[in-house]
């Protein structure tokens, strides 16, 4: 009896860790894409996450739509927003100096955070999913339907992302740009357009993560910073530029964090992830799947 309960709890913790993992994988994949193609560290990623969450919040509240439909809408809206931000802000600064890029990102953090606080107040917002109360029972397991859907939706998005990157001409152009920008230009690729699209896609993924966040918990305008920071840690953990690293790193991190909350309590949750990161980097400085790059 005790064993059964123990197993049931373990699986619930595992699934919860997977949900966290889903959020982290979406974030890490987006950041990885932006870094890979544009060589840009987007410090404002966290703010785009919560903005994506807020867009979903308003779509659900005002239009009464299903939260997961709202997620798709948010991804599209934020994708376009990302393209606009890249075109108006980052394009002028890309390639000039790392300091310029960093300062621009940091500036965006404050502009976005304060705009959201002004427009939405810092009262925590959450979305109530219509599946909130539905529990799926599999023998001894009791899993929230939301959790299953969240994992399913994430898998769907990641499959789409993978197909785009590996099976389309555009994806090939993005990969080429990330590997050799000069050669990509010589092959007729308009790398500035690729930058815009890449940033848009990265932000769309952040919006998906933000929507998951607002469904499973609540957000304030400042709630994006910590997940973004962790996502950075994850792409370093998984190896900069490695898509597989972003996925596996994100899942491992999510599960470790989920387990840490259960085993050692909430105050340690953020520390545990970073401790794992430090340990991995000591053993394998280029990350789990990293390349020895210049």
């Amino acid at each position, binding site marked *: 009896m005790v064993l059964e309960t123990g197993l049931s709890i373990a699986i619930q913790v595992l699934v919860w860790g997977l949900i966290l993992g889903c959020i982290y994988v979406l974030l890490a994949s987006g950041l990885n894409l932006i870094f890979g193609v544009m060589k840009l560290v987007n410090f404002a990623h966290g703010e785009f996450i919560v903005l994506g969450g807020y867009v979903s919040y308003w779509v659900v509240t005002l239009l009464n739509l299903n939260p997961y439909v709202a997620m798709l809408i948010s991804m599209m809206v934020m994708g376009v927003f990302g393209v606009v931000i890249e075109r108006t802000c980052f394009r002028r600064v890309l390639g000039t100096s790392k300091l310029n890029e960093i300062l621009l990102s940091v500036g965006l953090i404050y502009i976005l955070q304060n705009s959201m606080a002004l427009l939405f107040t810092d009262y925590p917002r959450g979305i109530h999913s219509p599946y909130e109360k539905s529990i799926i029972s599999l023998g001894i397991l009791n899993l929230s339907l939301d959790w299953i859907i969240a994992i399913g939706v994430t898998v769907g998005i990641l499959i789409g992302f993978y197909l785009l990157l590996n099976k389309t001409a555009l994806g*090939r152009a993005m990969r080429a740009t990330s590997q050799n920008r000069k050669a990509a230009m010589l092959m*007729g690729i308009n790398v500035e357009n690729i930058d815009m699209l890449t940033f848009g896609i990265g932000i769309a993924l952040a919006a998906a993560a933000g929507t998951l966040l607002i469904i499973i918990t609540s957000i304030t305008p400042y709630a994006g910073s910590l997940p973004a920071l962790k996502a950075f840690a994850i792409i370093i953990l998984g190896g900069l530029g490695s898509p597989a690293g972003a996925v596996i790193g994100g899942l491992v991190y999510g599960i470790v964090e989920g387990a840490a909350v259960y085993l050692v309590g909430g105050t340690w949750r953020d520390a545990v992830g970073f401790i794992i990161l430090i340990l991995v980097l000591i053993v394998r400085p280029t990350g789990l799947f990293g390349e020895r790059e210049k």
Partner: protein
Amino acid sequence: MKIVLHVEKLTSNYECVQVLWDVSFDVNEKEIVAIIGPNGAGKSTVVKTITGLCPPSGGEITFNGDRIDRMSPYKIARKGISLIPETRDIFPRMTVMDNLLLGTYVNKDVDLNSFGEWIFQLFPVLKTKSKKMARTLSGGEQQMLAIGRSLMSRPKMLILDEPSLGLSPIMVEKILDTITEINEKGMTILLVEQNVQEALEIAHRAYVLEEGRITRAGSGKELMKDERIKEVYLGM
């Protein structure tokens, strides 16, 4: 003969040092034109300027009647100029096949089957290694991949920057034979080379670039017989 590339009085600066002085030359349709000269003469600068990687400080470059100086590299590529750089610049973490397919980004109407077959005929090793990561290829194979990739875009003119660099003599022969074969199929080629002997053997016409200036011009055969060239470059 129809002039494909017309370069007039090109000047170029590299970090405040003038590298090219009033460089003028033409490439006609279906010709192989070589620019030869010693290291540091400015040959690569000429190539970078034509392909848009480096803006000229003066002069004009016209391609099939259109002014291309100061155009972005991707626009110049779309006009039909394809460069095989000195450093090959293949995409290391993509397969040989993906590298070749990338050549079609500029020109999506390419019939992959028939055209691809020709490229595999020219370079059989690319077919054998088509699923391998490009970075696992040897220097000579990467050179072949770079040429194949450029050919896939069905360019109107190929520019090869030092194709013999770093290759064994046998490989150099093979590559230059292939260049001749491609030219015989109708391709206009601009060849920039340090290996004067090999370049003059296959070029219809050549220009000698020394310290940023064109010092001599003539047919490949004429220049091979030229006393000064024989002495300075051919070790005779």
